[in-house]
């Protein structure tokens, strides 16, 4: 029996558990009775720009929810009554593309931790919402970077990533002492001169080479390692001035949580020139592969490939696609190397699938120990890309080119949600969606997979067959992450609803009608009806 990554009464971490399964062991709500699921309360955050992209945290019957512009709410998770709120005072001008959303907090040891749009980390008193400490990570006005991802707390360390991967900026992960806010370590995702890996950068390109850590990592308590995905190198589409593999961009890195020391890395895309990232979640699974028990890590990138590696040492196990329309490579060989690269060209348009929006978006998948399957979304869409030589200007956008969304060569652009064998990528079923699905998946021991679509429907599929069991119209598209928890023996399912975000903004290039999609920012909570006394 391996580590159990399922959640129970609480939803204590951003990814559910440290293993990031996004799977709840609760089964009061199940495939037989889910059609009776009923809304029990809703919570409106009051700010709808950027949509509602959060994952709520639930600890001991209290929910901690964030919205755009760094609002934090503590809510009675059974009734929806607000306990306290904290509205962070952002400057009037943020002026960078990584805004105004926030994707969640971390809760630990009586404190609530959040990164802010102007690049501070704040700690709040869990009971009152009062600010305990606040520390600036780097000046927003200089670095063009900030924090939108949820922190990860391991023991007394608050580990926080940073955006800025599409700007002239050098990325890092920082760890702060939970009590005092003092910075304990910083790991730069791009090695400085004299450090190992620096030779994979040309000239001064390391100074502005991207490598953002904009999502949230995972943690293996037995190995005492944190795992974090690192984003694309900058400039995104032009690599001519950063020749080399560009470590540790597009890598999953394993670090010691106390020291920030690098244990191993696995690079999915050496010298990325497509803005693919490897920044999404890392799912920790203990599975038998070819008769051998393995400690695995599964990470899907924006290029549409899932990479499975051994999480003790980063050695390659397998890779498989989550989208059908992928032409930037022809495949991945048995050693994990990319084959048949098709790169953007300076001054000339190149047709590349998937689009910059990704073969999958950041919204996370789920692993069910009951079916043994990994569930994730996939997107079919393409783009024209033109690369351009570009000089970096510190803190400003540094894309090195431009793109235009394009429909598929054959058939209509669309999204899907699929059930896979996590190691081989064998597909068991597929649910097709008219538009790409941009909300995270939630799996439960009731054998249901829940998510929302961009048209506002929150729905449940049978984990074994993919059949749709139930749906509910929430009034605005889904871009956040649903969770499940229980209070006093009653199971709840909560989902953010609220259309918005960077990728939502690209939709009208393919679907003109989506320009009129309604924004929103509401959390809906569902449960089974209580029997009449």
């Amino acid at each position, binding site marked *: 029996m391996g580590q159990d990554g399922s959640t129970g009464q609480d939803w204590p971490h951003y990814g559910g558990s440290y293993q990031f399964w996004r799977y709840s062991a609760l089964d009061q709500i199940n495939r037989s009775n889910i059609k009776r699921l009923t809304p029990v309360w809703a919570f409106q955050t009051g700010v709808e720009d950027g949509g509602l992209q959060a994952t709520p945290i639930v600890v001991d019957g209290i929910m901690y929810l964030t919205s755009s512009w760094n609002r934090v709410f503590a809510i009675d998770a059974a009734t929806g009554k607000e306990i306290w709120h904290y509205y962070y005072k952002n400057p009037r001008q943020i002026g960078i593309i990584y805004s105004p959303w926030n994707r969640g907090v971390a809760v630990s040891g009586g404190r609530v931790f959040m990164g802010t749009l102007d690049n501070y980390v704040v700690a709040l008193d869990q009971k009152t919402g009062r600010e305990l400490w606040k520390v600036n990570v780097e000046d927003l006005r200089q670095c063009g970077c900030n924090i939108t991802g949820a922190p990860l707390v391991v023991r007394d360390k608050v580990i926080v990533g940073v955006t800025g991967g599409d700007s002239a900026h050098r990325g890092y992960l920082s760890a702060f002492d939970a009590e005092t806010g003092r910075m304990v370590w910083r790991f730069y995702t791009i090695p400085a001169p004299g450090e190992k890996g620096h030779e994979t950068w040309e000239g001064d390109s390391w100074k502005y080479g991207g490598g953002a850590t904009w999502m949230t990592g995972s943690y293996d308590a037995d190995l005492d390692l944190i795992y974090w995905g690192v984003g694309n190198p900058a400039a995104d589409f032009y690599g001519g001035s950063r020749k080399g593999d560009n470590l540790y961009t597009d890598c999953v890195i394993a670090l010691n949580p106390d020291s920030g020391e690098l244990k191993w890395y696995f690079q999915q895309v050496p010298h990325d020139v497509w803005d693919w990232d490897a920044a999404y979640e890392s799912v920790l699974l203990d599975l038998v592969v070819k008769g051998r028990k393995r400690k695995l890590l599964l990470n899907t990138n924006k290029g549409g490939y899932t990479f499975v590696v051994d999480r003790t040492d980063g050695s390659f196990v397998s890779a498989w696609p989550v989208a059908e329309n992928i032409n930037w490579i022809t495949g991945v060989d048995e050693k994990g190397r990319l084959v048949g690269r098709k790169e953007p060209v300076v001054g000339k348009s190149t047709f590349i699938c998937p689009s910059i929006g990704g073969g999958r978006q950041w919204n996370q998948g789920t692993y069910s120990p009951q079916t043994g399957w990994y569930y994730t979304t996939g997107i079919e869409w393409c783009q*024209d890309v033109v690369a351009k030589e570009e000089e970096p200007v510190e803190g400003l956008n540094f894309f090195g080119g*431009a793109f235009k969304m394009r429909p598929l060569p054959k058939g209509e652009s669309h999204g899907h949600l699929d059930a896979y064998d996590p190691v081989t990528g064998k597909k068991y079923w597929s649910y097709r969606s008219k538009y790409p699905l941009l909300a995270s998946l939630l799996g439960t021991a009731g054998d249901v997979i829940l998510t929302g679509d961009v048209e506002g429907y929150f729905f449940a599929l049978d984990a074994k067959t993919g059949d749709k069991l139930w749906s509910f119209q929430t009034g605005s598209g889904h871009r956040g992450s649903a969770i499940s928890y229980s209070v006093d023996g009653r199971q709840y399912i909560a989902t953010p609803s609220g259309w918005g975000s960077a990728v939502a903004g690209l939709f009208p*290039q393919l679907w003109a009608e989506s320009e009129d999609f309604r924004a929103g920012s509401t959390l809906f909570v569902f449960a089974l009806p209580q029997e009449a006394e």
Partner: protein
Amino acid sequence: MIWVSLLLIQTVADPAVLQRGEIIFAQSCATGYCHGAAGAAGKGPRLRGQSLDRNRVSEAIRDGIPKSAMPGWKDRLSEQDLSAVIAYVVSLEHADEAGLPEYPMPPGTGPAAYVDFPGPAEAKQGRDWFFDATRLLQCSTCHSVDGRGIAVGPELSGSTLEDQDRFLSLVRASRSQHVLTATLTDRSSFPALRFEQNEGWVKLYDLTSAPPVLRTFEASSIASLVDAKGWSHHSVTRDYEDKEIKGIVKYLAWLRSQE
């Protein structure tokens, strides 16, 4: 009718200006997730085929839009390029889908011409040191000048900027007139800067490590707050060489001369 069409042409920008505007737009506004190729929508709003007021476009481009991701460009683009991109965005009112350029990036020379530092080279060198992001601890970690940096420590102005040696000795000082030692009732202590005090709460910057942390305490949890003996400004400027500090003074003195 010739004069009518001439009049129409007068209100339409010069094609060369529009072409320049198109290149600036492609590189500064269409990039990434912003306004999309030729304004066809991205994270930022769609601009093609919209009726846009020239004054509002100009204001938004120059100053940015508060409470949004739209930055101001007046300090980043030359006046000529600002005018060109404003003219281009306004011209998109008459653009339709059929008119979308075949390539997302129009042909044209070089990257957008960002405004260069207006001061002398030695001041620019000093500025680069002041804001040097390759150092974990840079001057701007604790001091704000010219609209950048975090204003934790005191403002850097006054007569010391005229005397490089005096400035250097202040930067290297083993004592600081501003820094206190805070001792908590649990007997822990740290070098602190007073920030705010009210209704039973005290906010202090904790200077134990960089970056400084703004911590909030119940007044009753602070045992004492006295002049620091254990903290020196030298301890946070060790990574800077003397010649760099002197270069930084030149930058600060130049800034002061511009006021």
